[in-house]
């Protein structure tokens, strides 16, 4: 199957081994400590010295969340089109081809079936290294398909978001993915299936302003940048310095926007717990939810 092919191609082309700079040692991007690369990978890309959460490759994320051997890819059959013939300093089509080749997948998301501590879920993980995790038609379509299939298969949906926002090379069609993903999530809501969103560094723009913040429960990773408008845009608009910690996960927790900041090491456990709890209801005779409820 084509989608499996796409997924399998990913490992040889770019797995954990290509995601961090080559060499035995890497530098923590926060405290600049020299870290033994294998240690960093083993520690889920969290710096042992300062606890900083480095960005994490998709395969490692899936491995960290899915019970061993439980992940079955769904995504991969949907491929992007240069619908606008978009050209800036380089044609979008060419840029896409290069990134696809490097990433070993057609676009910036991987979805599939998985178990998380036994809980049956659909898992969607965005790839920030693929054109900044930007959302074009394919990202929107894969999320919509995952939500629909999760609904059919009575699975909860877990979304690991990481994105620079909408993919401007697809113009207004990329904007429309905000609505497309949102309406597709109704397949979960109407069946009372939990949707848990995990915001990782960075989650911005049209992704934050659509499916990523519509989780029944929203967790964020420590220090993750989460925003609608990026800090640089705001600074240019208001010509002022931004407050310390602005738009970071801990800041948003104080502002009431997320349910909790969850360190990576605790994430799997926490996801399993809340999904288990949200599925342990049945307090009242369920009945289909009416439209609008």
């Amino acid at each position, binding site marked *: 199957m084509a989608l499996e092919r796409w997924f399998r191609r990913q490992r040889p082309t770019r797995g954990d081994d290509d995601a961090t700079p080559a060499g035995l040692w890497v530098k923590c991007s926060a405290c600049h400590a020299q870290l033994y690369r294998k240690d960093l990978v083993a520690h889920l890309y969290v710096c042992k010295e300062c606890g900083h959460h480095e960005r994490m490759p998709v395969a490692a994320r899936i491995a960290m969340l899915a019970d061993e051997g439980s992940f079955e890819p769904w995504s991969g059959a949907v491929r992007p089109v240069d619908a606008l013939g978009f050209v800036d300093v380089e044609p979008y089509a060419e840029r896409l081809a290069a990134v696809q080749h490097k990433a070993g997948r057609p676009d910036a998301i991987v979805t599939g079936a998985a178990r998380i501590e036994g809980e049956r879920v659909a898992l969607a993980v965005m790839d920030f290294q693929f054109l900044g995790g930007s959302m074009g038609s394919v990202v929107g379509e894969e999320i919509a398909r995952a939500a629909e299939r999760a609904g059919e298969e009575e699975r909860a949906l877990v979304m690991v978001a990481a994105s620079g926002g909408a993919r401007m090379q697809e113009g207004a069609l990329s904007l429309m993915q905000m609505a497309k993903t949102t309406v597709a999530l109704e397949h979960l*809501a109407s069946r*009372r299936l*939990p949707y848990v969103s995990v915001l990782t560094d960075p989650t911005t723009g049209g992704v934050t302003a659509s499916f990523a913040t519509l989780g*029944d*429960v929203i967790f964020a990773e420590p220090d993750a940048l989460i925003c609608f408008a990026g800090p640089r845009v705001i600074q240019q608009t208001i010509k002022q310095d931004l407050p310390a910690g602005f738009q970071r996960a801990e800041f948003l*927790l*104080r*502002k*009431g*926007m*997320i*349910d*909790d900041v969850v360190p990576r090491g605790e994430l799997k456990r*926490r996801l399993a*717990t*809340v999904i*288990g*709890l*949200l*599925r*342990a*209801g*049945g*307090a*009242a*005779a*369920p*009945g289909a*939810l009416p439209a609008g*409820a």
Partner: protein
Amino acid sequence: MALPFEKPIEDLEAKIREMQAYADEQQVDLAEEISLLEQRLERLKRETFAHLTRWQRVLVARASGRPTALDHVAAFVDDFVELHGDRALGDDPALVAGLGRVDGAGVVVLAQQKGRDTKENIHRNFGMAHPSGYRKAMRMMEMADKFGLAVVALIDTPGAYPGIAAEEQGQAWVIAESIRRMSRLRVPAVAVVVGEGGSGGALAIGVANRVLILENAVYSVISPESCAAIRWRDAAEAPRAAEALKLTSADLLEQGVVDEVVAEPLGGAHKDPAAAVAATAAAVRAALASLRGLGEQEIVRARAERFRHMGRVLVDSA
């Protein structure tokens, strides 16, 4: 630390301890004398607590060492996960919300939390919620409704916070909305007044199918102090105001405001927190069990009926 009327009890307890220590030290057998004293202590406690004035109940309801809402939660909720934030204004530590499990079934927990010490009290704003607390509660009610989770609300607040920001952010509006939101829940809701049930700030999470109250908890439209300040123009008349307000568990049961009184260990919950939280746990479990199996419409209807008939009036025949 002791409440005024607890002095004789504490004195007697001290005497028993002293005698016990003397017996141990001197290797003499005072078992009979001690036993007699312990019987006397039991009698004294029983009599004291049987005849507490309403104001004294208020003092017990506020006593330091009394189990807080989260102490009760810890006793009957498994896998408790606190969820934060109202998605609008902030996250209010005075009203804790989360998911958990009671007898295996998922529930939404709402808990008005006072502090166990000064530091926590300041953090919790003495259990007085801001609008963001009630907004968080409403968000959790939505979640309960969506996923068919029963709601358990633990009430312990002097009232909603009276401050500038609270008013600016629509304290009255969120209380009204929370009352309405809770009245629309299609899932069973159980509320327990575990300490102070202070006015609208308490009722905002009190529109439940079953409303329980701990034996020495109080539930009132206004604090005795404020009532006294208004009606007697002297806050020191709080004891008289407490009498007039009829705010004890027995009063409220008689008025039909609560459905059930949860007995506290002799001497009050603060004297034996473990026994107190165990009693609450059993009562909540039983209340939830009694609501199991009802349909959504029946749950909404029964709750509405419960509150529709609150109050006493005379009606002229036409």
